[in-house]
């Protein structure tokens, strides 16, 4: 009967664990079948889709905000133009000439220049 060693020397390099490494492996007791995998993948894709939609919607909502602000700017510019026109009309020569102040003005009897 040939010699049968009951123990073998295994070098550290050949060991699948080494110093300071865990020597136990976690093996889940839950086993997922192909259907569960498919469902999970589908769920992940759905979540990613929802995230995309949320971001796209948020970007679109910014566009609506921007549009609203643009409308306000346009409205304010219109009001500014209206006020400029009103101001120009109120200070137009014909308006000034017809004003109560202008009607009270009189021509000076004489004018003189003072040398400085």
């Amino acid at each position, binding site marked *: 009967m040939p010699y049968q060693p009951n123990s073998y020397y295994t070098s550290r390099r050949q060991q699948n664990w080494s110093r300071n490494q865990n020597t136990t492996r976690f093996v889940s007791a839950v086993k997922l079948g192909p259907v569960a995998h498919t469902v999970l993948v589908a769920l992940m894709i759905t979540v990613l889709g929802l995230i995309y939609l949320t971001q796209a919607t948020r970007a679109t909502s910014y566009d609506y905000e921007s549009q609203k602000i643009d409308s306000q700017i346009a409205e304010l510019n219109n*009001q500014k*133009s209206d006020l*400029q026109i009103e101001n120009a009309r109120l200070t137009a*020569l014909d308006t000034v000439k017809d004003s109560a102040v202008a009607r009270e003005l009189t021509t000076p009897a004489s004018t003189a220049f003072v040398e400085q």
Partner: protein
Amino acid sequence: MKLELLQGSRSRILAAAILIIAVVFMGRLFYLQVIQHDYYVGLAEAEQIARFKIPAERGLIYAKNGETPVPLVLNETVYTVFADPVTVSEKEKVIATLRSVAGSNIRENFTDLLDKKDTRYQILATKLTRVQADKIKEESLSGIGFQAVSQRVYPEDKLAAQVLGFVNASGEGNYGLESYADNRLRGVDGLLQTVTDVRDVPLTIGDKNINLPAQDGDDVVLTLERNIQSRVEQALVDGAKRTGGTNVSALVMDPRNGKVLAMANLPTYSPAEYFKVTDVAAFNNDTISGPYEPGSDVKTYTMAVGIDKGVVKASDTFNNTDSIRVADRTISNAYKGITGEITFQTAMNWSLNTGFVTVAQRLGNGSEITREARDTMYEYFHNRLGLGELTGIELANEAKGIIISPEELDGNAVRYSNMAFGQGLDATMVQVSAGFSALINGGNYYQPTIIDGVMQDGVFEQNDAPQPTKKAVVSASTSRQIKEMTQIARTSGFGSVDKQGYYIGGKTGTSQVIKDGQYSEDETIATYLGFGGGDETEYVIMVKVAGEGKIMQGAQDALPIFTDISNWLLDYLKIAPKG
């Protein structure tokens, strides 16, 4: 066995059928997605991507009030109210609302228009203000819509109408500055290309978005001084009433830089209601577009040439016989009786044609207007002082006028003898005024200009000070003598009408009108060309009065308008009397 074979055959047939269908589908998909890719992408983009024009705002136009710009032309957004008669559900409410809010802006038959159910678009009211439009919008009337339109507004109404011109319904500038500077005022429209939602709200998603902002037109500031312009227009109205003139024009220029301070014409019009004008002559700016024979105003030019060439002085004399022979023609004075040995100053005072034909002769050999004399006159009149040449003023429809060169067959001695007293050539008021400014400002010719700068972010940015485009067109000595001669000419005849203590000079002009190729006996044009100021000459004024079938005289009809404007200007510009 047979059954199995049959079953096998069915399976194969089914498989083959499915394969064929799959191939057909794949082929179709390949065709749609690969071969027709660009076509369907185009269709999709046309559906999803909108292109909006961002309209540029037309530039505003300002005059000056002293040194402060004041608006002459602004933009206003007005609204057109339209109806879709098919969808209008509350007709009575629409009628009542429009009547109470839109007033005179509604169309006369707008109630009938609402009944035109076979149409989808009817304009009910135009040119509503934003406030009016908002009031109507508050009523939430179904079937009623609004269209915003930008239009020009003129707070000073008719002021400087021919200088400004107008913008037509297509948005194009017509006449005046609006036409000349149309591209500059118009600006450049912007572009917004973007994916939109169903309500056409632009969205930032998409990779083909373009946003090119509009570049608004320049806000131009004119050299016109609002108060001077207004006063000149009033003086023209008064003058037209007094003289019966129907075509009256005036121009005020600063001879020190060529800036036009006022430019006015009668008849005139309201640019806001340009479409109501029945006679297009009202659109013309006669000061730049109406060449005419300037008449005796040009005697100042002839005298300046004589002095500058050293052939004559104001105190030199000639023998006046009230007529003078040139070739086969006899030229007579309009005013007769100042005969004998008289000075050229006297000829200027009485506007004697013979004196200035004599100057032209002295430019030649003393008794004839030789080719050399004609070349000299042409050199001064045309090349140096700009008669018969476009001045380049920044307004549309400037006319060139005509001055015949000695090179031409018609440029003979008779022609140039006539030109010596302002006939036989056509020039515009702006040409005559610009040349005269050079004669009395020391001899520098400034190109007339009407644009003083731009408004940039509400701040007036003035152009650099104008520089003479031609220097020393006459010597400083000649300029001084011409000023003195015209001052004496005015003082000797009309000095009492001026404010005392100022240096004011001028020359009358009464020119004949050519009708059917001949000088008319029953129509003349009156002009007055002069300057004023204290120690320094601050303004040149030119006035022209004419009327169909009317005899007008420079001294009686044009001079009083000059005096009216001049005396007012001395006060307005706070010019101190000369020391």
